[in-house]
């Protein structure tokens, strides 16, 4: 038997029309659509099914924002709690996965802003120095992720966000702009500057060297 959680006030344009509120095609899967409608009516089982379907994807994404296991689980929970609270605003113009991943990005960024301290950045750099000489190819995926995480941790949160999504998720500038809610130009400029900072930092550590080919992220000037 279905149990009930806090019912979201009526008026969701998605549920009212059983699909998007305008003429755009519904890109939401049947299972998601059913569970979203059930959740909006306070059906606990409906939302539990949505959480189970997407917790692995969101788990992977939130692992880019923290390497601490307990904080990671907290963040995943936070994404779904926030998702439920915002479900009324879901329009069905993009798959549910895109929508919940956008929330995940916001939750992760907020976590960084709360946690980011100069001391942590210096510690990240110290940790990176201990293993910096190991070539990328000789690292396990987990070691490579840890190393990249430490490097990106040295950047301010906005720069770190763009490069985390670029490197870890493999998203292009358009996808990052869409998920973060910034303009494409802003994302491009920020990515370019962040990579320049990172490159300067690595080169100051005696790592690598300048080449003649420009940064492929974009040649948007400073």
């Amino acid at each position: 038997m279905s149990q009930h959680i806090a019912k979201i006030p009526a008026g969701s344009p998605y549920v009212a029309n059983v699909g998007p509120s305008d003429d755009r095609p519904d890109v939401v899967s049947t299972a998601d659509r059913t569970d979203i409608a059930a959740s909006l009516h306070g059906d606990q089982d409906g939302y539990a099914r949505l959480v189970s379907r997407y917790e692995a994807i969101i788990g992977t994404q939130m692992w880019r924002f923290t390497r601490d296991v307990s904080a990671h689980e907290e963040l995943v929970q936070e994404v779904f709690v926030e998702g439920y609270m915002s479900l009324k605003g879901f329009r069905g113009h993009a798959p549910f996965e895109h929508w919940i991943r956008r929330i995940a990005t916001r939750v992760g960024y907020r976590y960084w802003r709360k946690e980011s301290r100069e001391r942590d950045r210096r510690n990240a750099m110290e940790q990176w120095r201990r293993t910096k000489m190991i070539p990328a190819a000789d690292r396990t995926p987990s070691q490579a992720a840890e190393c990249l995480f430490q490097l990106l941790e040295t950047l301010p949160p906005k720069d770190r966000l763009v490069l985390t999504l670029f490197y870890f998720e493999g998203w292009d500038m358009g996808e990052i702009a869409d998920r973060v809610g910034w303009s494409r130009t802003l994302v491009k400029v920020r990515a370019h500057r962040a990579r320049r900072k990172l490159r300067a930092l690595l080169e100051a550590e005696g790592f690598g060297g300048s080449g003649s080919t420009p940064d492929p992220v974009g040649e948007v000037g400073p």
Partner: protein
Amino acid sequence: MNETLDYLEALAKRARSESSPRVHVSAQVLARLSEPQRRIDTHMAVVALASAAMATITIAVSVWSRLAPPDPIESMIEVSSLLGL
């Protein structure tokens, strides 16, 4: 691309194949969704109780003052005695 950025790309390529810790959060999410509602209910109950108490006191005072309208001369004497006149 320069060597430094190549290094970052190589790291990222390997890092992307890392598996994150598995999470099963349905139960905790549903528990958290029920929790704030209870907290809001408790807060609302406290506010309602306090409002009811204030309303009762206000009504009692107004009824008492209507039943026993103050004598202006008596009030003046009370005030002057308080002031030590």
